[in-house]
């Protein structure tokens, strides 16, 4: 039943993306200044928000793990971090493609770009730390602590870089700017794609959690077999 629900949600997410792509590519007009390339924005901002949601979820789950020592929180934390890392990579890559077209360069050491890259590296460190610790309970404990540190560091880096230097376009959403700087149809589309990405992330995290649970079951069976033999 649970699997059916997960794959059903997956199919729904896929259909949602098809519908969004149809609107993005065929219905929305070109942007006044940038032309057609602005469409990549729908695959730039939503994955970023979704990745931040994943990292926040992982940090909360890590805190809960430390409090309760319940394995399921550790399973959730590692799954959400992995999915978040993939989404953050999408955000970086689409940003670079857009930058190449608009700025003529793939990368610039701008505040937002730098903090996005730092975030990515910090969470890469999280996965490397997990790889390196053999004992499951020590791995869960240490990576939970790292995840909490990482979220603070990411927020701090984001803020520190904001004071530093920026070439990245400023916020466009009405909730951030307080005025109508964005076409309502385009803003609606952004939220639709955010919905699609969030749903996709939920599905991927659920699938990854299944995988992690199976992996742990195999590991404990192997350990038991080793103990008998």
């Amino acid at each position, binding site marked *: 039943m649970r699997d059916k629900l997960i794959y059903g949600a997956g199919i729904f997410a896929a259909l949602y993306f098809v519908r969004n792509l149809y609107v993005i590519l065929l219905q929305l007009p070109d942007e006044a200044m940038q032309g057609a390339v602005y469409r990549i924005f729908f695959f730039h901002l939503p994955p970023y928000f979704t990745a931040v949601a994943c990292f926040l979820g992982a940090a909360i789950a890590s805190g809960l793990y*430390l409090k309760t020592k319940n394995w399921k929180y550790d399973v959730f934390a590692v799954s959400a971090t992995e999915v978040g890392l993939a989404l953050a990579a999408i955000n970086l890559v689409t940003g670079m493609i857009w930058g190449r077209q608009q700025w003529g360069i793939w990368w610039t050491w701008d505040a937002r770009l730098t903090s996005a890259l*730092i975030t990515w*590296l*910090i969470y890469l*460190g999280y996965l*490397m*730390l997990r790889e*390196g*610790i053999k*004992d499951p*309970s*020590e791995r869960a*404990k*240490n990576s939970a*602590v*790292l995840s*909490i*540190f*990482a979220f*603070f*560091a990411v927020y*701090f*880096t984001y803020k*520190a*870089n904001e*004071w*530093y230097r920026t070439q990245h376009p400023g916020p466009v959403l009405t909730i951030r700017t307080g005025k109508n700087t964005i076409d309502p149809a385009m803003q609606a589309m952004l939220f639709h794609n955010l919905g699609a990405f969030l749903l996709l992330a939920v599905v991927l995290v659920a699938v990854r959690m299944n995988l992690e649970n199976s992996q742990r079951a195999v590991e404990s069976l192997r350990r038991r077999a080793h103990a008998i033999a």
Partner: protein
Amino acid sequence: MTYFNQVFAIAGKDLRSELRTKEALNASLSFAVVILLLFSFVVDPDSEMLEQMSGGLLWMVFAFSGVLILNRGFARELPNDCLDALIASPIPGSALFFGKAIANFALIAIIEAICFPVFGILYNLTWTAQLPVLVAVSALATWAMATLGTMFGALTVNMQLRELMLPMLIYPMLIPALMSAMQLTTLLVAGQAIDSEHIVWLRVLIAFDIIFTSLAAVLVETVLVG
């Protein structure tokens, strides 16, 4: 024994054992001098560019050589199961953490105290015009390195790739502190006071220290004891 006595007992023990063997200190110091030398090939040593890069250059040296010291912090306790004995001793985890962080801080400060004059001599710079402020800024940034380094030293102490994992984990997290230290050091080495435009970096540095020191103090017990 009060909390402060416990902290200073740990710090004193660490400093004593390090100053007797000098294994991390010697390695770190010679490494720092080698990097200082290498930088003369990166940028023309006589140019004005050097003055604009001085803060970045110095903090790269301190970050690289500091990790050698931070790596030894907890690894020193591994032989003879000293770490287990320390954890079993009747002191709270945070006292152990602060003791080790203070020892690390002092050792990195020694490296810095030697590197600043060497840097001044090798690159013909007068760097003492704003000495008291420079010392304060260096202390803040060094504490940031010491506290994060000690915390992550505790996290990675049982790993095989410990020496590689520690820099991989702490450099990205340290960026706000290092960035502020670089900006301010460049300014101060050039003999200028911290103006209203640069005061924000001092705030970043102080906020970084407060946030991560308290976070580490809260979480270190979990890491050490479980």
